[in-house]
């Protein structure tokens, strides 16, 4: 008996020791095995990661950077810029600044950097291009004249503090000008942020319109898509699959073709108007295209599947017994639907709504072809600035605002739906 006890305690000690030794090496082994696995998975997705980096992440980052980029002045007048950076702005800059500016103005005379800088300054103060150009022509100053006098002689504005403040403001490599402009704000002469002039203040309206149209389209999609998704979810799979084909049918044609088809259908002599008139519902053609109505019709049509699919996938997972249970507990059918079914379908409503809303915010071709100028959304102006005026700063700034709005929306959504508590509720 005694011997047995000793033996067993011995075995126990040995076992514990072996156990601790083993567990350390086990952890190492596990880590090694896991590392290999991670590397292998990493290698598998490497091509995709590179592709996305080159075609997606980098271009977006580069474009977003352009919304705050301000390279022209710093590029043309690097020394002046750094001197102006330390200037207090109370009195005219010191002699050294004038010397450096005159020198750099002379050096860049007739070269593209000067043209770019002049154009950039002209954007903010119309007429400033000629100031720059004829000042540059007067450089370098004749011997015996100080650069300061020569500059002021070339244009009296170089003797005003405001001109130098204006130059100093633009002599930094980054500017919030474009971002401010895309929310109808600008710097005034003193460098304060003020509302933009009325004839330039269009972007807030455009952004509001973008949100408003996206919202209307999303609500229409939800109202039209929810009953269909509900019907599909409650049908046997055979019928649901047939309906699904019809839902996906629009995806089989190009968006451009569909927009063209809508123009044909909705124009004043189009099929829809003719049919309505033949039925005697209307007496003269309705204006259905090249206005808000046409854009809404086409966009809802195009985006409806994006609403129906997430709704359907969520609704398919909701057992009909829940509504039955609610009824057996005394809840009338409609209220049962609202109290028990709808809350469980909410993740689908959220996902579909978010998807449609975000897609809407970036819509360009449909409003461009089916709408009047009053229907153009933010993307139209991005395209306008990139294709027609080559103003990358404004294009990038408008894109950035859209991008941030989308991100905020997404974050709000994931805060509402993505939190573990709600996600578990949805299950």
């Amino acid at each position, binding site marked *: 008996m005694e011997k047995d006890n000793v033996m067993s305690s011995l075995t126990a000690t040995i076992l514990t020791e072996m156990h601790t030794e083993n567990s350390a090496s086990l952890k190492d082994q596990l880590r090694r095995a896991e590392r290999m696995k991670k590397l292998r998975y990493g290698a598998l997705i490497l091509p995709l990661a590179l592709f996305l980096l080159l075609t997606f992440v980098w271009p977006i980052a580069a474009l977003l950077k352009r919304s705050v980029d301000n390279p022209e002045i710093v590029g043309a007048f690097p020394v002046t810029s750094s001197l102006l950076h330390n200037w207090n702005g109370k009195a005219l800059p010191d002699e050294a600044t004038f010397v450096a500016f005159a020198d750099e103005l002379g050096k860049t005379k007739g070269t593209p950097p000067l043209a770019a800088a002049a154009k950039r300054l002209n954007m903010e103060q119309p007429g400033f291009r000629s100031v720059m150009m004829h000042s540059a022509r007067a450089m370098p100053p004749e011997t015996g004249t100080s650069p300061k006098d020569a500059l002021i002689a070339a244009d009296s504005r170089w003797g005003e503090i405001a001109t130098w403040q204006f130059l100093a403001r633009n002599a930094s490599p980054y500017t919030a000008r474009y971002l401010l402009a895309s929310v109808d704000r600008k710097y005034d002469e003193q460098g304060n942020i003020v509302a933009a002039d009325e004839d330039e203040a269009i972007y807030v309206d455009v952004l509001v319109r973008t949100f408003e149209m996206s919202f209307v389209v999303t609500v229409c999609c939800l109202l039209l898509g929810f009953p269909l998704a509900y019907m599909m979810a409650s049908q046997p799979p055979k019928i649901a699959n047939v309906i699904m084909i019809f839902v996906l049918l629009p995806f089989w044609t190009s968006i451009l073709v569909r927009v063209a088809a809508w123009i044909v259908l909705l124009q004043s002599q189009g099929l829809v108007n003719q049919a309505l008139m033949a039925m005697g519902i209307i007496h003269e053609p309705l204006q259905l295209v090249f206005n808000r109505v046409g854009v809404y019709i086409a966009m809802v049509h195009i985006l409806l599947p994006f609403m129906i699919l997430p709704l359907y996938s969520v609704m398919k997972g909701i*057992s009909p*017994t829940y509504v039955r*249970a609610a009824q*057996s507990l005394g809840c009338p059918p409609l209220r049962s639907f609202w*109290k*028990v079914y709808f809350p469980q379908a909410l993740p689908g409503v959220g996902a579909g709504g978010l998807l449609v809303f975000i897609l809407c915010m970036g819509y360009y071709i449909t409003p461009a072809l089916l709408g009047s100028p009053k229907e153009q959304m933010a993307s139209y102006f991005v395209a306008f600035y990139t294709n027609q005026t080559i103003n990358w700063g404004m294009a990038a700034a408008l894109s950035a605002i859209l991008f941030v709005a989308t991100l905020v929306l997404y974050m709000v959504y994931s805060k509402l739906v993505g939190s573990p508590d709600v996600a578990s509720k949805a299950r």
Partner: protein
Amino acid sequence: MQVRNLMERMAVTINPDTQHPDSHVTFRSVQKTYDGSTLIVKDLNLDIRRGEFLTLLGPSGSGKTTCLMMLAGFETPTSGEIRVNAQVVNSVPPHKRNIGMVFQNYALFPHMTVRENLRFPLAIRKLSAAEIDKKVEKALDMVQLGAFGSRYPQQLSGGQQQRIALARALVFDPELILMDEPLGALDKQLREHMQLEIKNIHQQLGVTVVFVTHDQSEALTMSDRIAVFNRGVIQQIDSPTALYEKPENNFVASFIGENNALEGVVESVEGDVCGVKLANGTRVKAAMRNPLSEGGKAMLSVRPECVQLNAQSLGCTNRLGGYVKDIIYLGDHIRVRVELAGRKEITVKAPAAQHKTRFDKGDAIHVGINPEHLLALDPSLGA
């Protein structure tokens, strides 16, 4: 006993106009078809007594769940009428029937906490907040889950969800509770525990319970009465004891419990006892459960534990010879498969202690069956 059985049998085929005085629910000539050609429920007449625990038992597709759904109001009878408390409820929508229901997968609302789930039926009935809280806590205590009120259903185990579903069906004090295979998703041990718990709650509250299951041991454990369904017809409605010991037809005999079936031809009829000649030529006496006539076919039914072996079979009226085909030792009892003459096999369940002197596979053996345990049934009934 005999008289009571007769009464109950009469209740099944009762005159449609008369109603049992303490009937809670009555089905009269109820039929249900989904496709217009096959009847899922054929001419159902059923009286459910106030306060009883009635189980609808049957194989899948026998119409028992349809019957329950018609009572709950989710299906409407194609013809016939259903009365609850003597009121015809055929066209009353489910939410106005005030019937508690426990569903197969519990159907607890996943977006509500346990407490909100229980509050749901009370809030609809516009009870005062204080009353709601009181009833909810009482119901939670009844199922011993008072501490789980603020959890979500999916944070509970299957058995706990089951209990909450039960509490939710009871919290608004319905007089009638329907349960649609509520224990199907639980493992065996938990199921047996829940069977007793449901039975206890039934006894405490005195509500009428209609319970649907295809598990016969569950039905035997819990029920006051069991209605055995097959092909849309109630085969027999009786207490568990009566169903097991006195099955009314071949289907009930083979569906409930283990059963040995032997075919034969009726040779003589004397009162309740008839003489039957088996296919292998042996003559036996059997208790007649269905009216049989001389020369007609009979299906003999005997439970494995009512067959005696060797020494124990000496006093039995019917003695048959055979060979031991197989012996399975199960500790407390042994199961012996005996091949009778004519290649007919019967299974015998005997206490292991009685058979110390073992017999081996291939040994000749005598089996004895007393006539009261050998039931002669009409093979054409209940098929």
